[in-house]
């Protein structure tokens, strides 16, 4: 997608030397950024690089220690988001700031009752904007009834209803299907062509290359440089991380073993009796990675929880090497050799106030090797922890460091070290790289592949298509609790995208593991 080079006019928005410190650390260190009307300026950086801090300064949520914000050349001083909005800065948040039980118009009206002239005015405004950009949003629809992609459009309408000159999109594609992402990008381009200045915050290289007019890369709070949209993903990744990175997962063709997890006709009901997993069947053999792709919330979480024994209204069969897991307690499932990386490591995987050593023995709290005569054998525990700290390269001061103070990548390493630290018959990883930096992602991926190469069946649930394509030997796509199809890893992204939206595609389903090598 090439776009006309934007005319070099005066910048609409200019950030000059923005410095924001939190105590001893500098989150933003003299950051300069300019955005012109009619361009999409991409702010690229890893988690924690300072992108969001910068945008919060711009939006008046933080006050910068140094630097200034200029809009159309006028210096601004924002005491809060209200000021920023009035000055013409709109923000589309990663998590929508919408009230689910209100209608679209009511949400747009919220906080601007006078300017919009009441509900009828808001309704009119929604219709107007919706028509102008082809949004197809009904002003009287309730937010909770709308798909995620449409909810995001409501956020955009909200910003536009305030005549935003500058629109900031903060990680907007995180919650979208590939198709919805494409639609969003089309909308962004249209907005740009109408003269809006757009700041697009992301860490997804593919999107950057597709849509950006200019790219500013920040790392560790500093601008490390500008990049052209023609740069390769490898170039962009190295700029973002500060060293050469391996973006593709290196792996050999799978060597299948006799270990197998056979899931047949698995149905899971939630507390309300709704089928959250609907008649799912698949087989994973030792030595292969089955990736479960799909948009968040299509039953993947419940599926993995059912395997672990956390779901209670489960029918069908989960057979691990001839051992039926349905009806077993979590304890029994773990003892059967299931390693599990939960999707939310801070909530389900770790006790933040516990030390690394304690977290590493979290699921082996009775009997050998860590407990003798009802007492925790601290020497054995610490020896194990010291060894894992070394072999998993967990960056911490020591094994006594509380896990809650570690970075996401190191926290995930603790989870992996624990789950891979005992003999396994099955390994299930749910969103294993969510929120991690590139370096940790490389590490996690290599551990997953090593586990597969050890002949263990591996299930990886991921909403990131790049990860799915990189890791998988086969891909199962879930949609509304069911498996749309199981396809080889070389299936095109377009096909996968369609499947994630629920379309059955020719060739799928293919529930048996392919014997041949899959690239």
């Amino acid at each position: 997608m090439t776009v006309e080079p934007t005319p070099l006019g005066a910048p609409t928005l200019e950030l000059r030397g923005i410095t924001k410190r939190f105590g001893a650390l500098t989150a933003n260190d003299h950051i300069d950024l300019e955005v012109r009307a009619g361009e999409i300026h991409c702010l690229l950086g890893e988690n924690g690089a300072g992108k969001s801090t910068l945008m919060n300064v711009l939006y008046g949520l933080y006050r910068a220690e140094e630097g200034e914000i200029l809009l159309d050349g006028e210096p601004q001083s924002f005491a809060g988001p209200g000021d920023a909005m009035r000055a013409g800065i709109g923000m589309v948040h990663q998590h929508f700031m919408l009230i689910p039980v209100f209608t679209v118009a009511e949400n747009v009206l919220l906080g601007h009752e006078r300017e919009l002239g009441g509900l009828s005015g808001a309704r009119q405004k929604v219709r107007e904007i919706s028509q102008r950009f082809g949004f197809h949003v009904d002003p009287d629809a309730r937010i909770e009834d709308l798909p995620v992609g449409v909810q995001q459009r409501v956020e955009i309408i909200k910003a536009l209803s305030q005549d935003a000159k500058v629109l900031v999109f903060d990680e907007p594609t995180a919650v979208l299907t590939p198709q919805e992402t494409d639609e969003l990008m089309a909308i962004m381009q249209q907005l740009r062509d109408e003269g809006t200045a757009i700041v697009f915050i992301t860490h997804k290289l593919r999107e950057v290359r597709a849509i950006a007019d200019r790219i500013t890369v920040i790392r560790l709070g500093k601008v490390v440089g500008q990049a052209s949209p023609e740069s390769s993903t490898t170039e962009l990744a190295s700029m973002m991380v500060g060293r050469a990175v391996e973006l593709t997962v290196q792996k050999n063709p799978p060597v299948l073993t006799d270990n197998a997890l056979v899931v047949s006709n698995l149905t899971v009901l939630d507390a309300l009796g709704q089928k959250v997993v609907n008649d799912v069947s698949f087989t994973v053999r030792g030595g292969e990675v089955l990736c479960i792709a799909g948009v968040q919330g299509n039953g993947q979480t419940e599926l993995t929880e059912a395997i672990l024994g956390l779901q209670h209204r489960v029918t069908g069969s989960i057979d691990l090497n001839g051992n039926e897991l349905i009806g077993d307690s979590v304890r029994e499932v773990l003892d059967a050799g299931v390693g599990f990386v939960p999707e939310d490591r801070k909530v389900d995987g770790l006790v933040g106030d516990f030390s690394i050593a304690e977290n590493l023995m979290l699921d082996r709290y009775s009997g050998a090797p860590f407990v003798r005569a009802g007492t925790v054998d601290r020497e054995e525990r610490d020896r194990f922890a010291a060894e894992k700290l070394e072999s998993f390269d967990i960056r911490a001061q020591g094994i006594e460091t509380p896990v809650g103070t570690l970075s996401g990548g190191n926290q995930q390493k603790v989870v992996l070290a624990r789950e891979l630290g005992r003999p396994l018959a099955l390994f299930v990883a749910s969103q294993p790289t969510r929120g991690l930096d590139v370096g940790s992602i490389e590490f996690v991926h290599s551990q997953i592949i090593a586990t597969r190469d050890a002949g263990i069946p591996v299930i990886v649930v991921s909403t990131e298509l790049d990860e799915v394509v990189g890791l998988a030997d086969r891909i199962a796509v879930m949609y509304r609790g069911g498996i749309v199809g199981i396809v080889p890893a070389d299936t095109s992204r377009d096909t996968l995208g369609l499947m994630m939206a629920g379309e059955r595609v020719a060739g799928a389903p293919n529930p048996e593991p392919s014997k041949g090598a899959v690239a």
Partner: protein
Amino acid sequence: MNETPRDADDPIEPHAPQRPGGSPDSGAAPTAVHAPAEAEVQVAAPVAPTDDRTADVDDPWGSAFRRIMGGNLVMAVLAILTSLVVGGILIAATDERVQETAGYFFARPGDMLSAVWTAVSGAYLALFQGAVLNFAAADRGFIYLIKPLTDTLNFATPLIAAGLGVALAFRVGLFNIGGRGQMLWAAAASAWVGFAFQMPPILHVIVAILVGIAAGAIWAGIAGALKAYTGAHEVISTIMLNFVAFWFITWMLRTPGLLQNPGGNNPISPPMPETAILPSIFGPPFVLHWGFLLSVLAVIVCAWLINRSNLGFQFRAVGYNASAALNAGMNVKRLTVYAMLLSGAFMGLAGAQQVTGAVTTGFTAGIDAGIGFDAITVALLGGSTPWGTFFAGLLFGAFKAGGFRMQAAEGVPVDIILVVQSFIVLFIAAPPLVRAMFGLPQPGRKSRRQRRDEAALAAMTQQKGAQS
């Protein structure tokens, strides 16, 4: 106010880490692998507020729990000092002489100031003499000098035991407000074993106490089972079980043939036989009985249980993060019941100590003497650690012992002591307030040690980065 670095969307996002729809940037700690010094510090910082937020949203008790657990010795000492100052103000304000002299304060301010000094110093001196060393009686011999100290230990005995019960439950994320009911059942069971059976001297008191402990455990276990298997919140159920226990035992004390002293009409039990009474450690005039050593033993057991045993490991895991405990295969429901049983056992020890040591002439439904509630304060002040609870119990024992003397000698109402105790809890629950009063930095959740650790970590990371 210091601004704490937050997660990207934090200040405007009411529920920070949403499970569905969360993206890589949400709620996650930013990371820097090969990072220079400041950057690695950044890593740790944004985690804390997000975590707190989660606790707030999920469970209002969770954040209170965290706050209680986050307390430290300095805060406890400052809270005590501040409360004593507030108590001093109240003593001065209620003193007649001070009120009188305040009338002509501007004419002769010295009068009022000296009256304030006399009232406050007199009261606190009496408190000290009643609780620690009675040097006014030193000339009557060493025994009389240190007798107040043993009185303090005596008062502290059930406070420590019951405090352990609350502390243990806290560590599992449970609030046992049911000390009263559990103590009442324990007292009733102990007393019943005492007066209804005849046994050899030492065995009798041991059996009586064990039965009391079991009774307390069962009563708390009911609340634990209700919580685990029906979801009834233990705060509600323990409070309600207090009423059930109180009125049930009152009825039994009123009913001839049950707990009522035969031949009497009052709701009081028969006196304990000599065989079922904990003997005095030092003999008369000291009232301090062997129950105190039982409390010390209980502290040691509780410390092992919480810190060293694998059951304690599971307890703490459930207390900090029940969800992770569940994922690690722990049986959270069963652990909840166990925790309440053990919590009630410590409460039961306190109840048994009351009838076998403190009040051996027959008990009434007031036998708990508010200890079940004071225990909450004691556990809070002790940071919910066994030894912290021990020392907090000693302090409150001292307040009780000294409070009586303060009232007798100086005419200061003993209620002032209750106010001081309550203020201690209030200040402990509001660390920023105390910090502000003493001009301490408001560090969020970071202590100086944490910052030092992080600096070391950063230096180390830099080194590691340079190597690779």
